[in-house]
């Protein structure tokens, strides 16, 4: 019987029949996965028909939280949404912070599993006693915040938390997102389109149960240690001021800031678009996720636009990556994409790919309904983004993502899509961060850094690298050596962080969580014994499960690679000049560590 930490219940919702069922969460089922992302993947592994249409009623959309979500643990805000991705056709999931996960915890449901398809646009209000199905055809076309505010007003409760889709999700843009807490985005892999395909505008949660831990005093003492470690971290002030946007200059300084669609790694005008500039000129205050005292998010105002964010990925995606030096434009795009519910990385990739291909003469405007666009052409970019959101004109094709769009073009053009397994690449040139390169290649949802976030390779801690990963090179960003071992370690901590749940930017990037303190937190939080060795083992099992699930979707070892550019074309200037990635070597070594067959 699960008494502490967990709500101990699973909620199953069938939208076709408009019915729900409450099941107990079996402790022997949950123990080997803890919760969150690992539990979601296990559910998908056990219940999803791998051949199902990702946008059909059989796809399973899962909202999952972990035993420590919404607890006294700092930044225990995260929740993960999992389904088969319509963008990539493989495992899709995306996590976000904010307040949604903590409120979901108070409903007593650790997982909400949604299947079927409603006959009319509706939203769901989940409370302790179950689900209310509320038809809302009048919400069609509403933005995220409009939807959130409308639900709160209708239900006369302003503590309700809402995860909603915007027009992009309704229009089944394959890289549309789900957004909660106004601006906290489950951005990747098209979870918004899955929700849209089910005619589900929003999932609202409001809890009345209270969360207890097994040993409050022991838990408090572990939490105090972690709070101290965060406050004492050498990057605390920097992160407080700029959040992830600090990476604009940090990445540029080592020559890996994607510029003009990864053609360059140094952006000459970085000072005009940096996190420093943003903090100085447009930020109005700090924002935080649930129970976080780092408060790395920011609220900004610029001209007629305001929103929370942007995070580094969005900032880079709409500045240097598209050859633009217009910071206010990027802030406008961040507000627009969060409002409409669309992933900034994939949106930027489809535009960046077209610009590069047109520059190289591989795509003619006639091929794209007369669309002609070049670097930094912000008015045109704005128009294209709008067309994608509403699937208007050529936007209808672009809304399927860069990889699918490229299928109608030459091989040379197809090679220029910066993706792995159909998921568009994040901002961070792998030629100068090799462990990240390996992470993009092997990540189970496609090109992504968050599956391992091997931040350690940038720390230059040589002695520790030797001790932990067998070679000093693990802390040398330009080396391939030791990176498979580093990634194999980091991916376990990443999965652990996602399963507890906690923010990875803190738990992992700031090197706060490890198997030992997590073991103590879990014991005090849930009353269940988790030895550090057992945690290592079950996280390893979790990585194996991702791998096996993707094999069912048809992935092969050859798919674990990087776009040709990063393997063959060295960067022409800056501190990463001359470097390319020997991805095969790292992937082989990584497979050996996991004892995986090709």
């Amino acid at each position, binding site marked *: 019987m699960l008494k502490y930490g967990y709500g101990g219940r699973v909620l199953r919702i069938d939208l076709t029949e408009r019915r729900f069922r409450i099941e107990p969460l079996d402790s022997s089922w949950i123990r080997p996965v803890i919760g969150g992302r690992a539990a979601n993947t296990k559910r998908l592994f056990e219940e999803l028909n791998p051949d199902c249409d990702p946008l059909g009623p059989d796809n399973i959309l899962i909202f999952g939280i972990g035993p420590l979500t919404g607890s006294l643990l700092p930044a225990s805000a995260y929740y993960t949404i999992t389904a088969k991705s319509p963008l990539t056709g493989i495992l899709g999931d995306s996590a976000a912070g904010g307040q949604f996960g903590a409120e979901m915890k108070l409903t007593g449901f650790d997982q909400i599993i949604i299947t079927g398809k409603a006959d009319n646009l509706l939203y769901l209000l989940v409370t302790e006693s179950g689900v209310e199905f509320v038809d809302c055809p009048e919400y069609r076309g509403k933005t995220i915040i409009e939807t959130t505010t409308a639900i709160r007003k209708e239900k006369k409760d302003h503590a309700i938390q809402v995860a909603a889709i915007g027009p992009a999700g309704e229009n089944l843009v394959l890289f549309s997102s789900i957004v909660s807490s*106004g601006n906290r985005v489950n951005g990747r892999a098209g979870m918004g389109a899955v929700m849209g395909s089910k005619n589900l505008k929003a999932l609202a949660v409001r809890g*009345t149960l209270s*969360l207890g831990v097994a040993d409050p005093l022991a838990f408090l003492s572990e939490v105090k240690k972690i709070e101290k470690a965060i406050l004492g971290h050498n990057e605390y002030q920097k992160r407080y001021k700029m959040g992830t946007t600090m990476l604009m200059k940090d990445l540029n300084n080592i020559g890996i800031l994607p510029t003009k669609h990864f053609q360059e790694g140094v952006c000459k005008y970085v000072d005009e678009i940096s996190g420093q500039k943003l903090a100085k000129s447009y930020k109005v205050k700090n*924002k935080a*996720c649930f*129970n976080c005292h780092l408060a790395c998010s920011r609220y900004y105002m610029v001209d007629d636009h305001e929103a929370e964010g942007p995070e580094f990925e969005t900032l880079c995606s709409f500045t240097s990556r598209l050859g633009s030096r217009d910071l206010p434009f990027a802030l406008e795009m961040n507000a627009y994409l969060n409002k409409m519910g669309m992933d900034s990385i994939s949106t930027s990739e489809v535009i960046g790919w077209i610009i590069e291909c047109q520059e190289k003469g591989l795509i003619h405007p006639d091929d794209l309904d007369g669309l002609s666009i070049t670097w930094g052409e912000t008015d045109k970019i704005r128009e294209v983004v709008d067309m994608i959101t509403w699937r208007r004109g050529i936007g209808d094709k672009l809304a399927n993502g860069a990889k699918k769009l490229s299928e109608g073009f030459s091989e040379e053009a197809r090679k220029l899509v910066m993706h792995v397994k159909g998921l568009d690449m994040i901002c961070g040139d792998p030629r100068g961060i090799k462990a990240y390169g390996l992470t993009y290649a092997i990540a189970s949802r496609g090109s992504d850094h968050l599956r391992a976030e091997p931040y350690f390779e940038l720390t230059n801690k040589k002695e520790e690298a030797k001790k932990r990963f067998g070679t000093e090179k693990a802390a040398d960003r330009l080396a391939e050596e030791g990176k498979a071992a580093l990634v194999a370690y980091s991916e376990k901590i990443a999965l652990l962080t996602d399963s507890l749940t906690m923010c990875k930017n803190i738990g992992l990037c700031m090197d706060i969580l490890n198997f030992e303190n997590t073991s103590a937190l879990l014991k005090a939080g849930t009353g269940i014994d988790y030895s550090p060795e057992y945690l290592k083992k079950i996280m390893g099992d979790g990585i194996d499960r991702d791998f096996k699930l993707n094999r069912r979707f048809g992935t092969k070892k050859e798919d674990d690679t990087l776009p040709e550019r990063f393997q063959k074309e060295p960067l022409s200037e800056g501190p990463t000049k001359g470097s390319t990635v020997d991805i095969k070597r790292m992937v082989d070594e990584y497979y050996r560590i996991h004892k995986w067959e090709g």
Partner: protein
Amino acid sequence: MIRVDISKCTGCKRCETACSFFRSGRINNHISRIKAINLYDIGIDGVVVCNQCKERYCDCCPKNAITIGSLGQVVISQTLCTLCGVCEKACPIGAIEIFNDFVYVCDLCGGRPRCIEACKEGAITHEVDEAYHPSLAAFKKDTKKMNPSQKQYFYLKKLGLEERKKWRKNRA
């Protein structure tokens, strides 16, 4: 009393979490005596907690279950209380709430409020001037027919709209 500066609030709810954990050993915003609300429509976050208002609107209990303590705090006698809801209705900003047969209102933790320790932004502080009691008369009429959540929202929205006027100016 606890003074709130919403310009510094990040919306993290650490105050709410600390309040319910240290008072009840569990976490839930319903049993917290300080309420953090995120007003996504205007980008404002803020908290609602007993202001120890000049008017003392809640001090109208038909069973005399409410008294004012030496720190100016509202003290509820749970034995005299019949859960009639008069005090909850009377508070213009939703700082008193009845949940699961119990009345929740800030009593300053007997002098050492745990929410203040939890807030790293200095958005909530302990007002030392014991004679300071703000007036809530401006809200009384507007929030008359609202439930506590609606009152909290109305109150914070009014403060928030004022706060927003300063945003661009402060930056410049």
